[in-house]
């Protein structure tokens, strides 16, 4: 039993650092470039993604193993997962607006963007691909979203500094941001030698 939990912890650590979604798997680059101007909006987006990804990992795992597998419909996973994620996001939005308005105020504007965030669908598909059980899926979903949040917050800090710099005109905006991301990715590739 103890070994099981240690494995889960290692799985989570790997997902956050070694296989970071942004810097090594390239999932969720659009919101990464889109909302990483300021650290506090980046943090808001990060928390929204963590919230949705943990719930969607659970929901897609349940639907895959309880509905798609028994009826031999595994080939419908992409369609089923994207529909689950889209409706889950919609549902979370309504739920938060009604019952936890404070949280809705903080995360509300980021929620619609999450439907087309490839990190969410990516995590759901990886859970199935790697044959994770329910607890592992939950842990993996949460930890990869935490890695995403870490990356996006670090990057927002760097971008605040870049906004005071004066790069050549063609490099202004996205190109210089990509080059900064490249430097952070080099730092993160230091983790890639570690295997748990």
């Amino acid at each position, binding site marked *: 039993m103890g070994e099981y939990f240690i494995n889960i912890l290692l799985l989570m650590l790997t997902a956050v650092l070694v296989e970071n979604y942004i*810097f*090594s*798997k*390239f*999932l*969720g*680059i*659009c919101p990464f*470039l889109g909302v990483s101007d300021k650290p506090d909006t980046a943090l808001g987006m990060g928390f929204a993604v963590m919230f949705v990804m943990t719930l969607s990992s659970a929901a897609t795992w349940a639907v895959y193993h309880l509905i798609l597998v028994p009826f031999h419909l595994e*080939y*419908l*996973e*992409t*369609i089923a997962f*994207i*529909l689950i994620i*889209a409706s889950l996001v919609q549902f979370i939005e309504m739920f938060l607006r009604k019952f936890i308005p404070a949280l809705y105020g903080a995360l509300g504007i980021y929620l619609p963007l999450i*439907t*087309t*965030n*490839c990190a969410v*669908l*990516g995590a759901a*598909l*990886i859970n199935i*691909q790697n044959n994770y059980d329910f607890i592992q899926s939950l842990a993996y979903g949460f930890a990869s979203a935490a890695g995403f949040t870490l990356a996006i917050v670090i990057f927002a800090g760097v971008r605040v500094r870049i906004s005071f710099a004066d790069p*050549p*005109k*063609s*490099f202004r905006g*996205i*190109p*210089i*941001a*990509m*080059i900064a*991301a*490249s*430097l952070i*990715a*080099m730092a*993160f*590739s230091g983790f890639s030698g570690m295997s748990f």
Partner: protein
Amino acid sequence: MKYSIKDLKNQLLDGLFNKNPVLVQMLGMCSALAVTTSVTNALGMGLAVTAVLICSNVFISLLRNFIPQQIRIASYIVIISGFVTAVQLLIQAYLPDLNRTLGLFIPLIVVNCIILARAESFASKQPVLPSAVDGLSMGLGYTFALVLVAAVRELVGAGTLLGFKVTPAAYEPAIIFILPAGAFLTLGFLIALMNRIRSNLEKKSAKDKEEN
């Protein structure tokens, strides 16, 4: 309204250059960074996206008067994921090697922003023929950008092109270009280059106008 050769030329030019989905509109960045470790992968991914884009554009354009306004995004996603699943199954059956290297990024075409963006901003308002051409030109533009990034990364990072060794034996490949860091670096520089070319062209056309 008749569709002329000139419209066709403009649309193709828009997709490949003026409004290139990756290098100008910054859409579909995830796959542009992830699958560009070799030109073969980039070509395969680009053609898969092009196929989905043409099919979804045609289908959405055909249904544009039947899809209710409120649930249009959900309907688009269902249509797109249907075509993505079809393409995924075809690649699995006929190109298993490509399927293994692209892996996760084939099903992730569903959430590739290019496809939804073209559905929303073009196919939902235009007749079938221009929508099909739009799908083709945007898809080719995406493929072009991916192949460009992949060519730089493969040449510098591995010394090969399409799997063939092209650099002299003395050249020591810079592995960093195959690693994730190289993806960001190459795409950043290519976007900057694109900005430069476009601003030069704009300056030139403004000058031409003044002289006339």
